[in-house]
């Protein structure tokens, strides 16, 4: 039963609606939870920022509902704040689901007073000196930018008189305290049923963090990795089956309407300037600024107020991998708690003595260079196969490379790792070496006039095709006390070829490559001849 009473110059009392036959029931809290965390598709390989987790998770909750016969609204309270309501699935219902809803408004002083507008409330006005409270019944007339209420005396504004004034409500007007999803169901008989609610929620992410230690002889590598998963939601998931999914999947969902976390009631009044001061205006302005800040970023505000963000949990259990369509699913074998505003680490892998080759490499553009020196890049190369003590999918993430220095191991470089399937080549970026410099010099260019062909385009302008050859050299110097393997790679423009060289030339990715060994404390020079077929405009 609902009654509308309102005022507009005179009292008009509303017509009673027909009795509402819908029962209201809250589902039991979840008795089983599963959380599958997906990596943000667009995040680079850096660390997770708990304040800004762009990934998401699939949450699955098993709950018991007890519903009477007829139409019932079942509320699932305490879902993640970042819920994408359109993704919710309720399964296990024996039919009769009419609709499902998510209300964005949560119970707060602001929403409560807005929901109570037009309804009867009790106003409590107390005398500061005597402590005597006066209770008056009235209605809230409007709550736009300040509250106007009506009593038998007339219209007044809330908290403008200087008396302590308060509103007492009789109900919470159906507003939920925590983010809530509800379904409307119809059954012929009362029912107790276990149902599964699953939904996608924002505010999760995970990262793979590899750490690799190179052996003192530089021939093998020990590789370990952690999965770090973060939950920035205000809701925790105790004792949950926890999975993470590796791979990049499509996301199309637009912005999710943030849940309105509500705000205080701002009792804004008429101008209250006095002859003696101006400070009160400032207070009012501060209050309004606070309010607009709260409206602009309710989620951010919640994040800040939650405090203690950087708690990191490390568990000892090792993760298990399985195939999920074209993605990789990693399962934490034991139930674990994905707490609110927490990041948690689980061991992903530990592999010892992976054989690696240390390679130095540089890209040169022999046609464009004028003899500048560049430093070589260092790569560790291996293959993701069982024989190399690997042979497992490596999800994308960040790798920190360490080298032994006496007793310690020190950080050498950090590099991104891409999603690497089994049997793929693995190249670990180990930074650059100042000991290995590369200088490329273009020595000479010749045009063979005998091959020149001229095509007249318009009178006075013609196109001339000529064969051009050039010679050049690249010097690689090695200041290390051991010989190094070096891959010299060329970037040649369209139609330019290496026709002769004093070292064996191969092809990689369609471009020339020289696989060389540079002697210890020595220099190696590669000479080559390039040929091309050029077209130029000629104006005689």
């Amino acid at each position: 039963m609902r009654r509308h009473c309102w005022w507009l110059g005179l009292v008009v009392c509303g017509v009673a609606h027909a009795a509402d036959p819908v029962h209201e029931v809250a589902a039991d809290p979840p008795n089983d939870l599963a959380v599958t965390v997906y990596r943000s598709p667009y995040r680079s390989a850096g660390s997770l920022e708990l304040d800004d987790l762009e990934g998401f998770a699939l949450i699955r909750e098993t709950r018991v509902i007890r519903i009477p016969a007829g139409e019932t609204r079942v509320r699932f309270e305490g879902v993640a704040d970042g819920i994408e309501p359109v993704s919710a699935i309720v399964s296990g219902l024996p039919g009769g689901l009419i609709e499902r809803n998510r209300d964005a408004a949560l119970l707060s002083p602001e929403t409560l007073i807005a929901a109570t507008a037009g309804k009867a409330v009790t106003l409590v006005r107390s005398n500061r000196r005597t402590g005597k409270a006066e209770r008056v019944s009235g209605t809230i007339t409007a709550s736009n930018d300040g509250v106007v209420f009506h009593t038998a005396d007339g219209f007044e504004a809330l908290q403008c008189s200087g008396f302590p004034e308060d509103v007492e409500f009789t109900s919470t007007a159906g507003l939920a305290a925590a983010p809530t999803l509800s379904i409307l169901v119809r059954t012929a008989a009362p029912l107790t049923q276990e149902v599964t609610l699953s939904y996608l929620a924002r505010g999760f992410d995970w990262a793979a963090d590899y750490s690799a230690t190179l052996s003192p002889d530089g021939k093998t590598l020990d590789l370990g990795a952690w999965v770090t998963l973060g939950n920035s939601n205000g809701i925790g998931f105790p004792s949950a089956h926890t999975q993470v999914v590796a791979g990049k999947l499509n996301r199309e969902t637009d912005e999710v309407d943030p849940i309105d976390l509500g705000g205080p009631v701002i009792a804004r009044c008429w101008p209250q300037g006095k002859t003696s001061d101006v400070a009160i205006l400032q207070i009012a302005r501060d209050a309004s600024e606070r309010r607009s800040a709260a409206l602009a970023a309710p989620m951010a505000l919640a994040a800040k107020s939650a405090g203690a963000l950087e708690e990191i949990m490390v568990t000892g259990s090792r993760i298990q991998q399985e195939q999920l369509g074209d993605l990789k699913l990693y399962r934490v074998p034991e139930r674990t708690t994905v707490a609110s505003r927490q990041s948690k680490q689980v061991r992903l892998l530990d592999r010892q003595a992976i054989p690696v080759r240390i390679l130095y490499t540089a890209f040169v553009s022999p046609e464009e260079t004028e003899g500048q020196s560049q430093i070589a890049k260092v790569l560790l190369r291996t293959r993701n196969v069982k024989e190399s003590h690997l042979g497992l999918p490596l999800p994308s993430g960040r790798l920190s490379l360490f080298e032994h220095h006496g007793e310690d191991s020190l950080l050498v470089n950090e590099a991104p790792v891409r999603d690497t399937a089994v049997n793929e080549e693995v190249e670990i970026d180990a930074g650059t070496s100042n000991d290995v410099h590369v200088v490329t010099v273009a020595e000479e260019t010749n045009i063979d006039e005998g091959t020149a062909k001229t095509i007249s385009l318009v009178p006075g302008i013609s196109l001339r095709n000529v064969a051009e050859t050039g010679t050049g050299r690249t010097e690689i110097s090695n200041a290390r006390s051991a010989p190094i393997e070096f891959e010299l790679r060329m970037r040649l423009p369209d139609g330019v070829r290496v026709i002769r060289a004093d070292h064996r030339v191969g092809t990689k990715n369609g471009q020339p490559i020289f696989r060389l060994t540079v002697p210890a404390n020595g220099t190696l020079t590669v000479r080559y001849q390039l040929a091309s077929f050029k077209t130029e405009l000629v104006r005689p």
Partner: protein
Amino acid sequence: MRTRVIVMASALLGTVPVAASAADRAVSVTIYNNDLALIQDKRDLQVQGGRQRVEFQDVSARIRPETVSLAASDLSIVEQNFDFDLLTPGKLMEKAVGQEITLVRVNPLNGVETREQAQVLATNGGVVLKIGDHIEVLRDDGLPVRVIFAKVPDNLRAHPTLSVTVNSTRAGTRTATLSYLTPGLGWKADYVALYDEKESKIDVQGWITLTNSTGTTYDNAQTLLVAGAPNQVEGGNQYPQQQFYRPQPRNNLQQAGTESGTRERLGDYYLYPLAERTTIANQQTKQVSFLDVRGVPAEHGYEYRNRWLGTQEKPASARTTYSFSTGSKAGLGDQLPAGILRFYMKDQRGDPQFIGESRIDHTPMGSRLSLDTGDAFDVKVKPTVLKRTRLSTFDWQSDMSYELTNALPRPVVVKLLQDGLIADSRILKESLKSTRRSADVAEWSVTVPANGSTTVTATFETRF
């Protein structure tokens, strides 16, 4: 919609306004795809003869007032206004300038209440009052003073209010229909597709998702959803949009359907009426089921599209695709309104896990859809430009190779596309027969063995 209707006689007539009965209400809401809804509110309206004002509170706060129409017999509209002047304490005081208010003071020592009348002189910065024969600033002494207003001015509203001045040729009750267009109500479809890898089948559930940001709740409304976006003429200034080249997005619709189905239509739009009346609360996301099909054959495939002269230093993942029919035979058997299809697949424990999503446009029945859900971890392609040779001034020969690798324990078929073959480009030589999807695109259907690789080579002759 809790539209409260109050009929007020015009002040000139000096008669008392009366409330219309809301017992026989029928609100119907028709929602289009492009943030537009038509609200029709049918009710009994009790009016007097002559000129008077009818007020509709709690219409959508985002109403397009120029689209309002009020239809009732023996009633003609004189003018209509949409009042946004909301009732706030500040406005209440401002409108009281020149008028009498009541002040209630309480003696802080003995609690004795005294009342006096005051006239509001100004509200600029502070409230200046005339009490008896002296002028005072409200609460200048800091002591509590209650201010009581006898009434709220007519033009201050607790809610945005539509007021219509009508001229009635007779008094009495009649049925009136108020209709208007408003943005803020929208709908789209959301689909849940569970793919069964062993059976190569999908189960698809379709949900209609309604959203309401109009600031108003529509109670017990008959709801009709229109799969279509009527053209809306925009107000304001229009600037020509700059056109930049963008690569063609992947086309989800492989073949447009030609089946008609049994859905209701409005012109060329499909209609999705909700079976029951429903309450669309403000700020609510509401979902109602409209499709539940099980065991539709679906095909899991891979696709990689290489741009012209694309070389990858490291192998790049192929796209995972799922294709199925929306036809009545071996298909979903329905028109699909535009929305997002979310794919799930069961993990080894049997729990469904999310594996990606894809957006679809309005899709006629009988279409073939091929939706991509993301990158395949284990199926990769490494395209390489092996050699570029200048054949003559305007002719180039390009030797390409595509190495396809598969780390899955089963063979896969990858649809390999090479685009950019414009003008009279020709394939001189290829290791596998291609089909020319269009002048622009060559397509190879490449089988890659389990845990193996396949290399496709092709030589193109082009003008660039």
